[in-house]
């Protein structure tokens, strides 16, 4: 299958992309050859967005080093950018939002009197004076005006030019904020028109492939609330009301007019409370299980989009509505609460990568005098660990992976597949590391028991990290000599998958 263009709108979109990146790193299969995330958010200093962009860049560097190696399952899916148009990376910078107020953006000062009155009718004084640098602060009426320019931008034009008939589109947005709620219907409408206007004085360009694209979307309903703050104009009490209003609009203009091929809904009633910060560097929310489940919608769309078709800008299949559910409602979710299909998709991969990350953090340095490390042409030695740019990027990515798990672990709706201890910065309260406290790595999975076999009753059973090293040595024999980074990933990918299969989930 070809490319999947993912439009991630707003902070929620960026966090879902982060979860998706983590899943792809673990080896969850996307069914797409290439994924092109495009994050649309005016808040260029948003901590969550920048964290996601850093993770995406690290993923790319790691994928470039090992993604095409057939004996490695981690980082398999290629993630690319619309590099020719979004030079800075993955975020589309909305023109005119830098250091300007909404009033300036709509050129309020040069409007004639009737238009000013009309603008005053549509937008409050707060809206008009609002600084756009940090986003739309939960105001979709502002967002719809500002984001309308995306579809008239060089970025949208380049996207349309790049779009091929086999490609697909997925849109991630929240329904209860400002950016996502405004951006999603707008973007969808323009995709379905297949029309790109850059210069008002020239004829628009029509893109038939784009018009007939297979489009899926997830709209994230409220899953967190915000505290009360005199510094912020965002009121989370209005999230539900906004959601209802938006759903009503979607029922006729999004899902109701066959614009979409597949629509995913997700939300959570058991909502954690985050600090109320309008945007910028301080806006950094803990990762949440809902974001992970939303990322699974992208995977599901990849597995099912062969069944969809679009003719003349309208979905010809009956629009598919999907929701995410778990087998058992619980405040603390672990693998045993997820249904079989979800578990088959993520359980082994997530566990294998978690083991990989743990070994690199806690054991690798002391286990370098082993055959997997020193027997082969390209050796894993102390200089590889301290100087190789690929390894340093991988270490940094793995730390982000553990922090991501740590954040989901401590969030109000706990996702706790592993028994870990979360370390936080006392000053900022940010999660800085997650580590295991159990002595055996096979007992760190909550509600999953280690499988015993007859080999455990032999005179020399290999246990815990010794079995890990044994699997690494065995995997190194399978992988053989290869480029050092490919060999590294191949050995660890094969070994961790084998460990997980032998000791935890035999039939996956």
């Amino acid at each position, binding site marked *: 299958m070809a490319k999947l263009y993912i439009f991630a709108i707003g902070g929620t979109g960026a966090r879902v992309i982060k979860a998706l990146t983590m899943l792809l790193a673990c080896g969850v299969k996307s069914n797409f050859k290439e994924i092109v995330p495009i994050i649309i958010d005016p808040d260029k200093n948003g901590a969550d967005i920048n964290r996601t962009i850093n993770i995406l860049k690290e993923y790319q560097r790691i994928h470039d080093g090992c993604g095409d190696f057939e004996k490695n399952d981690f980082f398999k899916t290629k993630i690319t950018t619309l590099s020719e148009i979004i030079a800075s990376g993955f975020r589309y910078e909305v023109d005119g939002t830098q250091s300007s107020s909404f009033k300036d953006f709509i050129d309020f000062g040069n409007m004639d009197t009737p238009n000013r009155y009309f603008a005053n009718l549509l937008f409050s004084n707060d809206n008009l004076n609002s600084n756009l640098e940090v986003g739309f602060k939960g105001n979709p009426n502002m967002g719809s005006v500002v984001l309308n320019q995306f579809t008239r931008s060089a970025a949208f034009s380049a996207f349309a030019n790049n779009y091929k008939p086999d490609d697909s589109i997925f849109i991630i947005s929240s329904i209860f904020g400002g950016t996502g709620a405004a951006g999603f219907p707008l973007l969808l409408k323009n995709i379905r028109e297949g029309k790109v206007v850059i210069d008002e004085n020239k004829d628009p360009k029509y893109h038939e492939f784009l018009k007939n694209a297979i489009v899926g979307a997830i709209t994230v309903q409220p899953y967190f609330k915000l505290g009360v703050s005199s510094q912020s104009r965002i009121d989370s009490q209005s999230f539900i009301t906004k959601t209802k209003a938006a759903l009503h609009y979607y029922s006729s203009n999004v899902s109701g007019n066959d614009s979409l091929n597949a629509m995913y809904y997700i939300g959570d009633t058991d909502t954690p409370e985050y600090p109320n910060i309008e945007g910028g560097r301080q806006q950094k929310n803990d990762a949440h299980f809902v974001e992970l489940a939303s990322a699974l919608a992208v995977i599901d769309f990849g597995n099912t989009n062969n069944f969809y078709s679009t003719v003349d800008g309208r979905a010809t299949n009956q629009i598919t509505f999907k929701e995410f559910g778990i087998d058992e409602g619980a405040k603390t979710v672990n693998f045993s609460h997820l249904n079989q299909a979800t578990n088959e998709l993520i359980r082994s991969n997530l566990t294998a990568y978690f083991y990989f990350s743990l070994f690199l953090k806690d054991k690798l340095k002391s286990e370098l005098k*082993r055959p997997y490390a020193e027997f082969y042409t390209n050796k894993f030695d102390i200089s590889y660990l301290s100087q190789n740019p690929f390894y340093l990027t991988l270490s940094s990515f793995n730390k982000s992976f553990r922090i991501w798990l740590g954040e989901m672990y401590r969030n109000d709706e706990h996702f706790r597949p592993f028994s870990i201890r979360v370390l936080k910065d006392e000053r900022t309260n940010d999660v800085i590391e997650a580590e295991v406290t159990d002595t055996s790595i096979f007992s760190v999975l909550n509600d999953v028991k280690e499988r015993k076999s007859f080999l455990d009753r032999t005179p*020399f059973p290999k246990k815990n990290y*010794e079995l890990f*090293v044994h699997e690494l*040595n065995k995997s190194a024999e399978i992988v053989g000599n290869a480029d050092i980074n490919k060999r590294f990933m191949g050995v660890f990918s094969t070994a961790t998958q084998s460990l997980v299969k032998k000791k935890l989930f035999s039939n996956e």
Partner: protein
Amino acid sequence: MNDFFTPIFEFFHYSSPFSDDLYSQGLYSILGLAQVFGTLFWVLTFYYWINRPKFAYWYHWLIILLVNSLVLMIASMTITQARFSALNLKYNTGDYFIFGLKSALMAASFFFVFSMAFRWGSTNAKTTPYPH
């Protein structure tokens, strides 16, 4: 077989008439086979049966080498003494002990050679006793 093992044994140890009696009684073949198969047993045990990361350092290899040498030293002394006593050939304990020590040295050499030959196939000890 006796002729095959004689130069090897006598490379490590030759003293007349002790060595001549060993040759004439055909003991070199028995002791040589014991050296080969005994050492092979310990090498295969270390590299393929035990074959575990926790027991794959050079000092573990050295322990097995010493055990093998000790076993073969005792075996060489015991077999030789039993045969010579039956034939009423008189040698003092020192002669047997020296022969035993040289046999142990020979066993250590066999152990090293077999280790170099068989370590490649081991999963966890292919770099033992020293890195590739």
